[in-house]
């Protein structure tokens, strides 16, 4: 580049400019960090509690009800209503033995005191959780069963969502519970307090904004895990909701950047960039790098919250970092492609969400992969969001090794490279 400015230096100059602009934009920041955080915390908190029913293939499940309370009984009754499961009461020792021998697909243990915690959004995260004991090889059934459990439990939650007044009341109750909770540290309390306060504000906004109609929170059935106790030990609900929230944050970055690329054109700064001695390939690569860095920052921030504040087990860190980077590459490519789809900021934002919402919905952004019915799971293969979440989950708690993760990484990076090259090709040919 001459005069002492290397290509790397130029890329950094370009990317840091974009990041600076991005993090100064409050609205963009909300979609990149605020909403995903709220999402991860909210659903993680909700699904830290449990419920159950519905399905098709009969699974024999042993139930170990140590709680014996009315809530637990009601929960088991609802689960039993499902055509998919056949329940039988057992002691824990019997149940474990039955599963080991293969006489039962799984056992479900409801610990003492679970019913008391189960009545609210909050509490299950720290209190005793359900345990699903299962043969590790029966992963598909495990997911299905979790889905059933969540679906029934979620029945009540869905009503709550349709009704902001009830939801707010519930939020209040949860907030009170947090204040009373003795097993929470002060920082945790503060975190939840801020979270619920912003959620109340969000509910207010939601009522007037027509956000519900855009599919922000509505969507199909919302069933999520929490109960699951895999063979590797407990998985917290946050380990399920935070990979989802990371993908939401990444999608926020993608829209943000696709829009800035168009904005550069509309506002004429692109002209000035083109008038500089920097080749267009470097200019576009700078955009890609900025988007990649933004997605990484968002992902690591959310993982930090999940790991440090919520005590979520982040699993295998090198693989997790690799998964984050693979997501970054994939969605930077999608961003580049997206920015070619319109000539105005509104057009790109509109097209962006129109493409990414279904992608997120089908890919496990709302219904976690583990709770998906099999037809949706098959459909989700076409969504890059699925592969992103799958890679993150794989590293965090699915216990996948490098080789098992390789297909997901390959798809993500492949899509990213494809998007980057196509997008760059189109953009560099535009006058």
């Amino acid at each position: 580049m001459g005069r002492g400015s290397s290509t790397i230096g130029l890329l950094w100059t370009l990317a840091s400019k974009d990041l600076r602009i991005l993090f100064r934009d409050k609205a963009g920041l909300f979609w990149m960090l605020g909403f995903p955080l709220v999402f991860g915390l909210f659903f993680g908190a909700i699904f830290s509690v449990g419920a159950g029913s519905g399905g098709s293939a009969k699974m024999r499940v042993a139930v170990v009800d140590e709680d014996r309370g009315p809530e637990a009984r009601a929960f088991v009754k609802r689960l039993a209503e499902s055509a998919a499961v056949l329940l039988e009461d057992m002691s824990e020792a019997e149940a474990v033995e039955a599963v080991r021998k293969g006489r039962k697909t799984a056992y479900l243990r409801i610990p003492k005191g679970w019913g008391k915690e189960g009545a609210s959004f909050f509490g299950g995260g720290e209190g005793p959780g359900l345990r699903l004991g299962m043969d590790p090889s029966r992963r598909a059934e495990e997911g299905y069963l979790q889905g059933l459990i969540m679906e029934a439990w979620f029945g009540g939650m869905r009503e709550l969502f349709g009704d902001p007044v009830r939801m707010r009341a519930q939020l209040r109750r949860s907030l009170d519970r947090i204040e009373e909770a003795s097993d929470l540290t002060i920082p945790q309390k503060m975190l939840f307090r801020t979270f619920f306060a912003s959620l109340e504000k969000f509910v207010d906004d939601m009522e007037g904004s027509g956000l519900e109609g855009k599919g922000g929170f509505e969507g199909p059935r919302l069933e999520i895990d929490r109960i699951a106790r895999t063979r590797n030990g407990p998985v917290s609900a946050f380990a399920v909701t935070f990979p989802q929230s990371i993908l939401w944050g990444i999608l926020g970055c993608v829209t943000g950047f696709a829009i800035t690329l168009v904005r550069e054109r509309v506002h004429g700064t692109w002209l000035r960039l083109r008038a500089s001695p920097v080749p267009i390939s470097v200019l576009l690569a700078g955009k890609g790098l900025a988007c990649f860095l933004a997605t990484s920052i968002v992902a690591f921030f959310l993982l930090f919250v999940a790991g440090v504040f919520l005590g979520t087990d982040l699993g295998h860190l090198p693989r997790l970092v690799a998964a984050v980077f693979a997501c970054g590459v994939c969605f930077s490519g999608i961003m580049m492609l997206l920015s070619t789809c319109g000539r105005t900021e509104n057009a790109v934002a509109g097209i962006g969400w129109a493409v990414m919402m279904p992608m997120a919905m089908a890919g496990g952004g709302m219904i976690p992969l583990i709770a998906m019915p099999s037809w949706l799971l098959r459909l989700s293969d076409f969504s890059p969001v699925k592969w992103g979440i799958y890679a993150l989950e794989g590293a965090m708690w699915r216990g996948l090794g490098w080789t098992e993760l390789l297909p997901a990484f390959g798809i993500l990076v492949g899509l990213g490279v494809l998007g980057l090259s196509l997008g760059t090709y189109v953009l560099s040919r535009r006058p």
Partner: protein
Amino acid sequence: MIEVRDLVKRFGKRTAVDSLCFWVEAGTCFGLLGPNGAGKTTTIHMMAGLLEPDGGSVLLEGEADPTRSSLKRRIGVAPQSVALYDELSGKENLEFFGRLQGLSGNGLKERVGSALELVGLGERAGDRVAGYSGGMKRRLNLAAALLHDPAVLMLDEPTAGVDPQSRNRIFENVEALKKRGTTILYTTHYLEEAENLCDRVAILDHGRLLAIGTVDELVREHGGDSILRYVTRDGGAREVSCKDPLGEIARLGREKVEIREVQVRRPGLESVFLHLTGRNLRDG
């Protein structure tokens, strides 16, 4: 030194620039004058390598390909629409564009500082551009173009929508740059600006070159007569148009016409344009 030969640009059926030829001597200020849509911006963009011409050639500083980065480094462009990042401060904007031009370290700091001083934005350098007035943005837009001390500076309507103070400041800046030996290409649809700032002027309309030369040459050739208005002792006002108003006054004196008041209006570029196109420039 700039040489433009038979430059052509078409957008669909519309020919935005039609076989344009002109040359600009190094260290002078050249004005591209014409109403909106005349093709000034299109011409500048082709010269700066931002737009591919459909025909013709541009020779800048002896080089033929304006898309080459070695040449781009010697060109500064201040686009017609203010091209700055609103979310960044004035200083951050300049630092960013300076880095793209290959400046760094102390050199960058100095250049940014002096560019800010030059356009009178030193005190507001730390504020975000979003809070600047239209005139301040224009001045920063100019500063961003001259950061790297280019040999050729292209200013596309640098005074559009600007308050009188900012406008004067920009005039001063252009004068100073001229003194330093910068070759300046200046587009405008304000005739007075071209008259005051430019050594030579090209008049453009519908993409075609109508006339070219120094302001004096153009006025002499195409401006038509001067208008002489005088009021006689008895209060009667007359208006005559003539080539040589001083001679006319002398003639009136010889004829013993007693004159109380005289007013001479020499033709300017306004009348040049009127003569060439039959339209007023301002009417578009």
